[in-house]
């Protein structure tokens, strides 16, 4: 039943919101402009005031906190930050959404309400709370209604209420007041009758006394407010008995029994009953924890079973465990060298313990990936709305745990891939209907364990990748030869090449000049791999394979001359002997034939310019990354090792092809090879060399200068 005035208000509010947006965008670049601050404040004030006058309570109460924030800005208590501006912009959108739901006369849905609550929470964190009464909204009663003090600790109250005799004749029902209390929390009550025999003829007079127990997180004043119209004439006592957490069901029952038994049981008696019960409880708890009894199942204890620790301490712990693993390797080595049976036994025990300790330390840093998934719901909602698409996000495997560093660095790539799915993958609702799909597209984000790695896949039921379009674009951008016949997998991998985009037009969502190459780079940095599977017209799936942790990897130790290198085992397919014939082919195209497959390889000796004696036999370690194989020629393969990764320090952070170093059991240092960049450098190097040879006709075999 929207009336004309309400309609007028909605129109006015829309105008205000549109002006508000402009002011906000302006103030971001001019945060000290007090005129703009005033303008924003007035807009919020008007919206709040008018919406409350016209019965749009949800809008009024939501706007209140934002108005408060800008009042604080006016007073110089709070500064205009980009964060404040974006929060206020989000609030503007929220108010607009509330207006729309008011206009269509539907209750705001849960999602909208919780989004609003989330925003308000952030505002309250940002802005010091205005003491009640300081706001210009009227009585404290009003303010409390608008800002429920959710952080207030719950407490148990006893309310003794003897209403005025004539309460019914004033059109008030005491039971309504008790029900109002009950709505604030958990309530039980006892009703006694006045001793003075009630006048039978006057059923309209009230002689009841109410004794109420209420556990609530509302402040005392809210409780008093319930009795606002009768407190002057009533006998009313509201007393706090205890923190609500101190009372379980048994205690409640005993308190109620005591209150039933005698009308005027003193509050002090009730309090001591609670304390006594609490002490017994405490004693039981202590005993059960001392004797490891079943008391540990108490819900209170469960919360105490997890503790918060600053993440630096965990990092430190993991580092120390890493050192320990290194020292233990040396101990094992020494035991072998000394061939002392008792020392060997000790070394083995230490090894077993340390490996358990390592696993434990690692597991402490594991965080469920669900924490990251949460933020994508909003992203999908906002972006799909912006693009006029209907998309639902389905998440699976939120419990899958990953090292927290991996999770932290995974956020942005995931955002980018989801954006890509929303923007380029899922079609517009009308298009989807045309090809017989449901109007709403689905993006499925799932995580699962697979051996020592975690698989994260983002799949959508959209149009999939158009490989022909990719080919044309790649040719246009000079990334591939027009005559080349790349495989589908090769075409798909072009999507991850720097600067590549197939978007027909630049939208505000994905066309921001950051391509999927950034995703590729980030995942590579995490030691992960990307796989794309595509079914044109039906959708695409991008799967990320990530190591569980970054600190310790399984590696293959190899030797070139007197130098040691580690290749991450996860990428290694096999090791083959390099036939002497192939060795001689050398220069220009280093290729090896492995069971009919021609695989390029990099000779680490050449690459790192290692001199010294060459071995009779060389070996090629074949690696596979993102479906592409490449070999590394080495002098010897020494075996698998648990490798604790040490960073090389700032000086060497830009060295391509080396991701770190590790200290081996005998104290020597081995460099850890970062496979993809090393291949990239090798390819670049070779091209440069070929060019040089072509120009100068130089036949020198010296590949490095």
């Amino acid at each position, binding site marked *: 039943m929207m009336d004309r005035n309400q309609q007028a208000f909605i129109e006015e509010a829309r105008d205000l919101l549109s002006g508000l947006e402009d002011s906000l965008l302006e103030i971001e670049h001019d945060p000290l402009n007090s005129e703009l601050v005033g303008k924003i404040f007035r807009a919020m004030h008007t919206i709040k005031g008018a919406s409350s006058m016209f*019965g749009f309570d949800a809008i009024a109460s939501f706007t209140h906190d934002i108005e408060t924030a800008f009042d604080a800005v006016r007073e110089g208590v709070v500064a205009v930050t980009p964060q404040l501006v974006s929060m206020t912009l989000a609030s503007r959108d929220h108010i607009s959404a509330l207006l729309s739901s008011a206009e269509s006369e539907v209750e705001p849905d849960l999602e909208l309400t919780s989004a609003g609550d989330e925003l308000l929470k952030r505002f309250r964190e940002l802005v010091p709370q205005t003491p009640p009464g300081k706001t210009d909204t009227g009585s404290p009663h009003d303010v409390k*209604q608008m800002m429920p003090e959710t952080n207030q600790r719950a407490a148990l109250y006893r309310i003794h209420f003897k209403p005025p005799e004539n309460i019914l004749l004033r*059109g008030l029902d005491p039971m309504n007041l008790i029900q109002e209390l009950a709505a604030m929390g958990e309530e039980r009550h006892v009703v006694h009758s006045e001793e003075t025999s009630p006048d039978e003829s006057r059923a309209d007079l009230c002689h009841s006394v109410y004794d109420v127990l209420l556990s609530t997180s509302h402040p005392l004043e809210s409780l008093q407010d319930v009795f606002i119209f009768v407190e002057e004439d009533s006998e009313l006592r509201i007393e706090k008995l205890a923190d609500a957490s101190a009372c379980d069901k048994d205690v409640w029952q005993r308190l109620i029994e005591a209150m039933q038994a005698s009308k005027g049981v003193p509050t002090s008696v009730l309090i001591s009953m609670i304390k006594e019960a609490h002490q017994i409880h405490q004693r039981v708890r202590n005993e059960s924890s001392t004797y490891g009894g079943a008391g540990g199942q108490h819900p209170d204890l469960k919360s105490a079973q997890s503790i918060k620790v600053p993440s630096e301490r965990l990092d430190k712990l993991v580092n120390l465990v890493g050192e320990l693993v290194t020292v233990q390797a040396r101990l094992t080595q020494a035991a072998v060298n000394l061939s002392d049976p008792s020392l060997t036994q000790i070394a083995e025990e230490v090894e077993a313990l340390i490996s358990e300790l390592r696993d434990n330390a690692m597991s402490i840093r594991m965080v469920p990936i669900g924490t990251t998934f949460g933020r994508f719901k909003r992203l999908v909602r906002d972006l799909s709305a912006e693009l006029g698409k209907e998309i639902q996000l389905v998440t699976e495997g939120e419990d899958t745990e990953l090292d927290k560093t991996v999770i932290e660095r995974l956020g942005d790539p995931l955002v980018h891939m989801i954006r890509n799915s929303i923007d380029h993958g899922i079609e517009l609702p009308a298009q989807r209907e045309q090809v017989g799909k449901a109007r709403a597209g689905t993006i499925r984000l799932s995580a699962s364990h697979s051996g020592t790695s975690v698989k994260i896949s983002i799949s959508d039921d959209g149009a999939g990748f158009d490989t022909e379009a990719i080919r044309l674009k790649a040719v246009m951008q000079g990334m591939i030869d027009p005559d080349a016949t790349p495989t589908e997998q090769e075409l798909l991998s072009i999507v991850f090449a720097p600067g590549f985009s197939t978007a027909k037009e630049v939208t505000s969502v994905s066309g921001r000049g950051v391509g999927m190459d950034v995703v590729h780079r980030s995942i590579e940095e995490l030691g992960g791999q990307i796989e794309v599977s595509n079914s044109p017209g039906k959708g695409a799936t991008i799967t990320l394979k990530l190591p569980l942790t970054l600190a310790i990897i399984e590696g293959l130790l190899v030797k070139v001359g007197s130098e040691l290198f580690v290749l991450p085992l996860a990428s290694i397919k096999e090791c083959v002997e390099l036939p002497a014939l192939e060795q001689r082919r050398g220069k220009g195209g280093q290729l090896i034939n492995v069971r009919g497959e021609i695989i390029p390889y990099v000779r680490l000796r050449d690459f790192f310019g290692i001199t010294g004696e060459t071995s009779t036999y060389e070996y090629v370690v074949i690696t596979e990354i993102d479906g592409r194989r490449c070999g590394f020629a080495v002098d010897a393969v020494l075996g698998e090792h648990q490798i604790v990764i040490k960073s090389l320090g700032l000086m060497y952070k830009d060295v391509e092809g080396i991701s770190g170093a590790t200290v081996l059991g005998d104290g020597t240092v081995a460099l850890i090879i970062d496979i993809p960049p090393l291949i990239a450098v090798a390819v670049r190097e070779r091209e440069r060399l070929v060019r040089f040879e072509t120009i100068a006709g130089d036949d020198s075999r010296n590949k490095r200068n």
Partner: protein
Amino acid sequence: MSKVIMTVDDSTSIRQMVAFTLGGAGYQVIEAVDGKDALDKLGDSSTIDMLVTDLNMPNLDGIELVKGVRAQQRHKFIPILLLTTESQETKKQQAKAAGASGWIVKPFNANQLIDVVRKLLK
């Protein structure tokens, strides 16, 4: 079925504001210009669920209206909300003794009025 509230005030703008506010909150509102008009309109009607009345009015003031309403068996328990100002404490006490259910102090905003009406109409 929406509840029916009668607003009693000699000021047209206050009546309109109350009617407007409570109307927006989903109540049906009828207006009376003073206590006498209110009693006439109340009559034997059983369709009115609540009164919202001013204290100072010509013909029959708020206190007399409360007394008049409570004197009728039919309206013995109907909630009556007073619109008062800070300076009307004595009158408020008299009206309360006569059977007024509650009061709201002017100036008030729409939300406060709706809250109080909801509370009294439970």
